[in-house]
């Protein structure tokens, strides 16, 4: 069974690039859960910070997917 896989190598590059933000978002929420577990009353303050950090880390992955389509 021979054939060929067609597609853009950009997508593989994007997959690799998404590892970084993935680890980053994991770390952010790990720290958030830790913080809430230690001090449950701080949840509302930590939540804003966690979501903000998540948005900033995610921006890298998002810029990556935009560039993966744009650069060919």
């Amino acid at each position, binding site marked *: 069974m021979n054939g*060929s*896989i*067609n597609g853009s190598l950009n997508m593989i590059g994007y997959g690799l690039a998404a590892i970084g933000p993935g680890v980053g978002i994991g770390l952010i929420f790990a720290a958030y859960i830790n913080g809430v577990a230690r001090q449950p009353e701080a949840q*509302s303050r930590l939540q804003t910070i966690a979501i*903000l950090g998540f948005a900033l880390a995610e921006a890298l992955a998002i810029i990556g*997917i*935009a560039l993966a389509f744009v650069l060919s």
Partner: protein
Amino acid sequence: MSVTGTTVIRASEEFAPPGPADFDLPAVGPHGSFELFGQSFVLGVTKPMIQIVLAAVLVFAFFYVASRQRSMVPGRLQYVAEEGYGFVRNSMGRDIIGSRDFMRFVPYLFALFFFVLVNNLFATIPFIQFPTFSRSGMVYGLAILSWVIYNAAGIARHGFVGYLKLQSVPPGVKGPILLLIVPLEFLSNLVVRPVTLALRLFANMFAGHLLLILFALGGEYLLLHGAALVKPVGLIAWVLFIAVAFLEILIQFLQAYVFVLLNAMYISGAVADEH
């Protein structure tokens, strides 16, 4: 770019993966086209344009009806509207901008949140099922609006020079390192911000919708054109489609929240006191 290898599926017909071209919806009704900078543009009304107007009308109509008959003991509609308003005012306005001058910005943040939320939910609502903000032009408008508002608020508070100093010189930094820090801070606070703000919302909606198209088309392809043993995988793809669609609803809400939260953070940074 093609990579030669072994495929598992022998197909009677080539599978065409979905791409950005799937987002170029045809114009509705009469339309023409024109050339600009060597590219051809469609001059007409498209589906996202109708949606963005529809969203504004829906948000206005809902809150108009909900707040028309206000009573001390809220009815169901008024309760929902009040909860929504309280959520934006308290968690995004008061907690972030600060109790001194958050009320001036609450109308903007409130309208923005529900406008973006409804536009995002259009991706899930049956028969519409297209996220307005997966067209990047739609988001750039909101990003420019946000840029104008936080800069205007900052300049009104600190004056032009004071505002530039606030945004580009971090407190407590002295000496030659300023040569490095000032251009970086200037670029990141005043130039790159609207771009990342717009790209975040756009690319999330774009990627989410693309993922759903991929699951739907891939499932259909496996089911109809796949070899006998891979046909059931098509059904699994459709089950995953439903799961991802629910995840998308979460992301749509989260992105509307993050978009308005970042708007509030930018305004808060612009009107903050000098240190």
